[in-house]
């Protein structure tokens, strides 16, 4: 099977280790990974801030780019949610019938990482080893837009050495919200403080998620507050093995 990796703009720039982990993980599972260097951004930031025309041009670009891909894997729930929930409206308003057909043909081949592993590859045990206590933070988009359910926890449950520390109030937003975090910085910070209390109280060594955006928010606060917890994208946990631990490709 071939999978085209849409790494997303901020993972590419800020969290390349997540991308390297996805490549390592998928190749270990026998998937041939491709990377289209033409890729930039799905348009989420512009769409959610009200820049509809700009969001549409990025959407159009992204759809065209992956036209011929067998499958597309995206290690970011919110970018997948952007494509599934917002592209149709943007195409309705600014696109045409041809683009809509292209989009509809592409849509069923787009997967968030945990969906790809469980729904497409049919694996829960990815052969990972990560001997740490980990708490899983469900991003709002993964939870309520993609309905990932317990897929993430099922994947973590099969990681050898990993001890899960359940996070209370799992469905509560961390307060990131893209440009919300700067437009409403004070409110965003207050929401983050509430979330961080729950996260830190788990006593885990790592907080993981399927979105680096939430982790950038929580991790940035942890670093500011000298909290002894680290953040790590779930791809890095799943890629980690006894011979090549997560730190090796971080």
């Amino acid at each position, binding site marked *: 099977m071939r999978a085209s990796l849409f*790494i997303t*703009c901020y993972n*590419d*720039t*800020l*969290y*390349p*280790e997540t*991308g*390297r982990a996805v*490549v390592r993980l998928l190749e270990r599972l026998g998937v041939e990974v491709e*990377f289209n*260097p033409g*890729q*930039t*951004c799905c*348009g989420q*930031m*512009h*769409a*959610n*801030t*009200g*820049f509809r025309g*700009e969001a549409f*041009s*990025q959407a159009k*670009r992204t759809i065209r780019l992956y036209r011929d891909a067998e499958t597309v894997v995206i290690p970011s729930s919110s970018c997948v949610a952007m494509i599934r*929930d*917002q592209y149709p409206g943007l195409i309705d308003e600014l696109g045409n019938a041809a683009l809509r057909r292209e989009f509809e043909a592409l849509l069923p081949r787009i997967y968030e990482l945990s969906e790809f592993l469980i729904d497409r590859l049919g694996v829960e045990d990815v052969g990972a080893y990560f001997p740490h206590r980990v708490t899983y933070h469900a991003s*709002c*988009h993964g939870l*309520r837009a993609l309905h990932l359910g317990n897929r993430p926890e099922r994947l973590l449950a099969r990681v050898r050495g990993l001890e899960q520390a359940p996070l209370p109030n799992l*469905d*509560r*937003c961390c*307060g990131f*919200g893209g*440009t*919300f*975090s*700067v*437009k*409403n*910085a*004070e*409110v*965003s*910070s*207050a*929401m*983050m403080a*509430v979330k961080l209390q729950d996260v830190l109280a788990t006593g885990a060594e790592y907080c993981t998620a399927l979105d680096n955006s939430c982790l*950038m*928010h929580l*991790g*940035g*606060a942890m*670093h*500011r507050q000298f909290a002894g917890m680290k953040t790590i994208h779930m791809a890095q946990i799943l890629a980690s093995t006894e011979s090549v631990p997560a730190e090796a490709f971080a």
Partner: protein
Amino acid sequence: MSHAASHAVLDPVFAQPFPQAALPVLRNPQLRKNVAHAIDVIQAKRAKLVAEKTDWKELRDAASEIRAHALENLGEYLEQFETNCTAAGGTVHWARDAAEARRIIADILRQENAKEVIKIKTMTSTEIQLNPALEALGVSVYETDLAEIILQLGGDEPSHIVVPALHVNRSQVREIFARRMGIKDLSDDPHALTAAARNYLRQKFLTIPTAIGGANFLIAETGAVAVVESEGNGRMCLTLPRTMITLAGIEKVLPRLADLEVMLQVLARSATGERMNPYTSLWTGVTAGDGPQSFHVVLLDNGRSPMLRHKVERQTLKCIRCAACINACPVYRQTGGHAYGSVYPGPIGAILTPQLMHLEHAQSLPYASSLCGACYEVCPVKINIPEVLIELRAQVTDRERKEAERFFDPLYLGLRAANLIFSRAWLFTMAQWWGRLGLRFFTRKDGWIHSLPGVGGRWTMTRDLRGLPDQTFRQWWAARAKEAR
């Protein structure tokens, strides 16, 4: 609230933008505690009662379809309501905006020679700022809902549409009642507080012959008006007075009486976490010798009909004011209601208020959300609030583009630049390189950025940012491919 006395009337025209308006609340730990505690209690009750309903999904679908159908045929159903209500002895008035509604109500009171009125809780009357207008005409207005009494006597404003005094705690209620009712040794025991309110109210119910209320639903098929409530004050206002005036938004209409079967089930569970609300009153026009003999309905548009034109915005009018979205909102949980500068706070307020204001005011409200989607998940009539928020953000941005000063806004410039950058992969690659170079200046020895200028400073206010890695993913990929060759 501590700053209740200085609190201006909730008016989107004069309200500060949301980020600034939220600041006093964020600095008030007692208030935040009151709000978080209250909504956590309601949320837990709601979750339990929704979970016990095995057909919740079907109920929710049905409620959504009933409301959507009513709105698609709104004109027809409103006329049907008018015909049936009039035939039953009621008088129906149509108000284009708040000023017209206030004028109609003032005229009715003048004809009735009413100098005092009792009121059932109605957020719509707060929307049109009815109380101050009536007081200015020399009419004394007495709220009869417990929470509304607390607010009226305390000189405060509602912070929630179902539990308007949610931000006020017991000891604050005791203080307000003792001061305004002149009770020296009042305890803050809930029984003592409700007994004080009961004494205060009883005399009003027995002596004031004119009442004003709202409507939860208007029934087109029969011309009936439905009000649901918890305290029985509404029932008193609907039976004792001689004159009853109902103020209702035009969207409140339901086609058939039987639709209440669905709506009442989802409303009580979503609003107060009860299987059924304690008092459900339905009345149709005037019945000789029983209840008010003069009955008026004022149908209020006030910015509603333009919302009907568009599929996305129209959803807003499906709202049945249960406040489930408000209780589920992590933003509201931190800020409470007053920060929204409108009688309608929380997610529903963030989409309703700017539209009622024709986007001339309250433009900051569509941005007062992290788009977490908790509101949509709990909405019993399936209003996709995040979708409407994004639509309104686009409308606000489209308007702002036309304003010259927009071009000095760093966030606007940044997003425009980003769009250009995202249009070509080579530009994006170059921007990544420049970004790394630029941020290196701010990156400390530990590899983290602790402080940034401008918009970035809004981030580093409370959060660090990891410095940009030496190699982007695409660089790593290119290097790896080269190696493989």
